[in-house]
């Protein structure tokens, strides 16, 4: 697959903000962009005597996500406190899940150059988010400000196995997670708003002539995973955690940079995994480099212990069934169904699915009404998507209903309208809200549908162009083009080219 002198090993930790109206342990709003510290209360600001109460909706969304990630759901799960001091964490502990996460052992299928691939998921757990700090570096923190609006927002942390082997796979993994979680209504995964965040652990297995000694098939390290050097028998570089990855593109770029940097460093110092402590680096988007990060807390001993203010959560059959029922069709299932049911290509099915359920539903409606899934797919994946992108809207606010678009498809099919003209009609429909017929009329496009009507126009064109007829008879077949052009002008392009071609030839030969 690649001729790099190393194999890249990436594990991703993804934090996803759940789509709840209120925070995980209090009733404050989770809305993005409110004035600083306006969405806060005694609970999420950690005032003395306050107590957390779990938001059941958040747990349900998390359950749904874990099911979609093929995770095993724990029937008994508890909350733990992760203790560390930071001003954006008003209690100085974060309510999280430690040894009994509500889900574990899942997988996510991604598309790679070599075909579909399953990336294992170690665990997914729920936790509360911290606030945001606006640092004052000059004043040594004296004038730093804290915004606690985000404090207590429900986060789902999804930890993958180190089974991602290229920057492209890392991007595909994130794109698939984003699509999946959006589709099942768990998160809007807006990286700009911080509702999807990602940290990456990356190192390299340096290929050397001696053959690798992989573990028996199917065996995977328990949590925490085995050092990859033990798994493969190849020298591995020290693991680096890369933070501050604010877009999927940044993840790809950072992984590429980091792989290259680690290989060069290995060639220089030859240092292997275990020979130096795990390093944390931050991605500098502007400079396109990773830089060593100052450690937030020197020794990361979080002193986890069970959160005594919350009771354990018991997931019974009914609750699980309810979460499963809320899942609906997952993207992977949907892709397969579109291929099978509508005879679409894998590529087209992928394009449609990536746009979300609403667009797929739109496509399916057009396909059903028109009885032509191929045309429906062409129109939706080309014109409709282009319009959505141009206007920066989603299918919910798209001006043409499925019925209207189907009207256009039918006109095109019946009239044999050339592509260029049909796009003009489409554009007018979008602009004015007219039906296909109305738009065509307004554009002066008359359907020259039947061969008889066209034959008359052809006959007139032949009569009006004696020179072309004469040239044709002399063997200049190209002279027919002038007749065809006249016909097209006459019909305002509203005649099917093959039919015109056929009728013109017929007429010329007869004349």
């Amino acid at each position, binding site marked *: 697959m690649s001729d790099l002198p190393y194999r890249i090993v990436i594990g991703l930790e993804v934090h996803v903000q759940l789509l709840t109206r209120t925070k995980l342990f209090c009733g404050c709003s989770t809305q993005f962009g409110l004035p600083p510290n306006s969405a806060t209360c005694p609970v999420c600001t950690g005032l003395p*005597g*306050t107590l957390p109460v779990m938001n059941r909706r958040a747990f349900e969304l998390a359950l749904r996500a874990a099911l979609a990630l093929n995770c095993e759901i724990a029937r008994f799960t508890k909350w733990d406190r992760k*203790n560390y001091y930071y001003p954006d964490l*008003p209690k*100085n502990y974060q309510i999280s899940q430690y040894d009994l996460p509500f889900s574990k052992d899942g997988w996510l299928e991604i598309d790679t150059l070599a075909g579909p691939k399953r990336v294992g998921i170690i665990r997914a757990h729920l936790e509360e988010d911290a606030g945001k700090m606006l640092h004052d570096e000059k004043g040594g923190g004296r004038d730093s400000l804290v915004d606690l609006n985000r404090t207590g927002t429900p986060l789902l942390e999804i930890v993958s196995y180190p089974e991602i082997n290229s920057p492209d796979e890392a991007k595909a993994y994130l794109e698939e997670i984003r699509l999946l979680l959006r589709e099942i209504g768990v998160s809007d995964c807006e990286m700009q708003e911080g509702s999807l965040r990602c940290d990456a652990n990356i190192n390299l297995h340096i290929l050397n002539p001696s053959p690798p000694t992989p573990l028996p098939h199917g065996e995977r390290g328990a949590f925490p995973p085995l050092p990859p050097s033990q798994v493969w028998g190849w020298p591995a570089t020290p693991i680096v955690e890369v933070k501050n990855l604010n877009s999927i593109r940044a993840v790809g770029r950072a992984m590429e940079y980091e792989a290259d940097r680690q290989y060069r460093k290995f060639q220089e110092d030859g240092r292997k995994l275990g020979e130096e402590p795990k390093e944390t680096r931050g991605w500098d988007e502007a400079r396109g480099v990773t830089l060593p990060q100052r450690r937030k807390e020197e020794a990361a001993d979080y002193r986890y212990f069970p959160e*005594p*203010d*919350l009771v354990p959560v018991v997931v019974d059959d009914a609750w699980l069934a309810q979460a499963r029922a809320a899942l609906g069709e997952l993207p992977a299932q949907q892709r397969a169904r579109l291929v099978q049911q509508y005879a679409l290509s894998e590529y087209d099915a992928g394009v449609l699915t990536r746009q979300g359920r609403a667009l797929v539903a739109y496509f399916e409606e057009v396909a059903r009404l028109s009885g032509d899934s191929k045309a429906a797919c062409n129109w939706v994946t080309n014109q409709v998507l282009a319009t959505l992108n141009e206007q920066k809207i989603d299918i919910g606010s798209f001006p043409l209903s499925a019925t209207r678009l189907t009207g256009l498809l039918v006109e095109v099919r019946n009239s044999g309208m050339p592509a260029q003209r049909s796009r003009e009609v489409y554009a007018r429909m979008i602009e004015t809200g007219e039906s296909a017929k109305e738009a065509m009329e307004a554009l002066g496009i008359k359907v020259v549908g039947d061969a008889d009507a066209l034959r008359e126009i052809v006959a007139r064109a032949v009569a009006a162009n004696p020179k072309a007829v004469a040239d044709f008879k002399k063997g200049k077949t190209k002279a027919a083009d002038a007749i065809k052009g006249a016909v097209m002008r006459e019909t305002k392009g509203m005649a099917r080219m093959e039919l015109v071609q056929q009728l013109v030839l017929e007429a010329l030969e007869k004349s």
Partner: protein
Amino acid sequence: MIERSAAALLDSLSRGEMSAEALTAAFLAAIRQREPKVRAFLHVDEAGALEQARAVDLRRQRGEPLGPLAGLPVAVKDLLCTRGQRTTCASKVLEDFVPPYDAHVVTRLKQAGAILIGKTNLDEFAMGSSTENSAYQVTRNPWDLERTPGGSSGGSAAAVAAGEAPLALGTDTGGSIRQPASLCGVVGLKPTYGRVSRLGLVAFASSLDQVGPFAHDVAGVARLLEVIAGHDPRDSTSVDRPVPPYSQSLERPVKPLAIGVPREHFGAGLDAAVEQAVRAALALYQRLGAEVKEVSLPNSPHAIAAYYLVATAEASSNLARYDGVHYGHRAAVYDDLIHMVERSRGEGFGAEVKRRIMLGTFVLSAGYKDAYYLKALKVRRLIRTDFDRAFQECEVIAGPTSPTPAFKIGERTDDPLTMYLSDVYTIGANLAGIAGISIPCGFTGTGLPIGLQLQAPPFEEEKLLRIARLYERETDWHTRRPKLV
């Protein structure tokens, strides 16, 4: 008038024999007169109390519905949040902290028409057994002003004993209601964990803390418990179970009645006068028809160790929030953020609180957690099993509340381990989450009160109160008052 029981005062109020304002004024007068000696209160809200009392009187005049404690003053431990009123936890850290909310129990008191007369002293953040760890003042035992009232709810116990309030609320994490009740000659009850909402109770050790009542007698405690008990959806650990009308069934006999006496509670360290009084109480129960039998709590020797690991671990996390960043004491001078947090905490916390934060941080640390914290959790489960097993043979477990009567001020402050042993008989109930009560059962030769502890299975407060009342009816210890004037 102020020496009478809460139930008697409530009867007089409802019969219109006295106004709430007059009663409140009488208690405020007693406070003014006795506080210089006792120092039970951190804040007394004279104007607010009188205003509340007048409002109750007005409602009564108009024939409007009144709550079960209408017009009766109640003192509240300053670990319980009161909206718009300073709540210091007897700590410098929260010297100016004014909560924007009431603790659930305070809301219940207001709904019941109680007069919130003031906030009582405690060991800082409830960490202590003598109320000497208060950052503000030392409270004295009304029976002997040279001695401590016990703790950590020493202010509440002393206020009731001194006749400064007929009822008071305390909190009990390892004996902080029962031990001061015992040392001050009043009744104090720690409810089952989950019986009373902890919302607004500033946490010391969340899995052990409970709010509970103080009164001169069992009936007073029953009345106050009725008001504060019950489910609160804002506290996830509060249990949704009906609250029996405790004060209605007090006189009903408990038959058959088996009283378990744990042999482990009569060992070394038990004061002779205390043992004698407790044995006499058991003998009285026997005369009243109870079967008194020996039971065993074999893991109780490990209770103190387990308690100080679990409680301090939770405390180290619960008290992490007092960093000077968002509220509370912030050092005036500092170099950077870390320095600010260090100095704010260093200045704000007293020695005992620091000791417990350090201990708790240590026992949760990597490399020590298994040997200390996790082992303590295992011992905690064994202690719960001990109680379950013992309760198969008896209705209540009886013994001394505290191994000694009230000790001298300053006597144990340099010896935290001896101080910790004050709670040796009471912490089991917190670790097991069961209910416990301390009732007066006699006096030492020098006139110091002695308490009898009764413990009942979870949510058996009704039976516990009836069994306590059975003894109280036959004795007059609870009617005695210290001579303060």
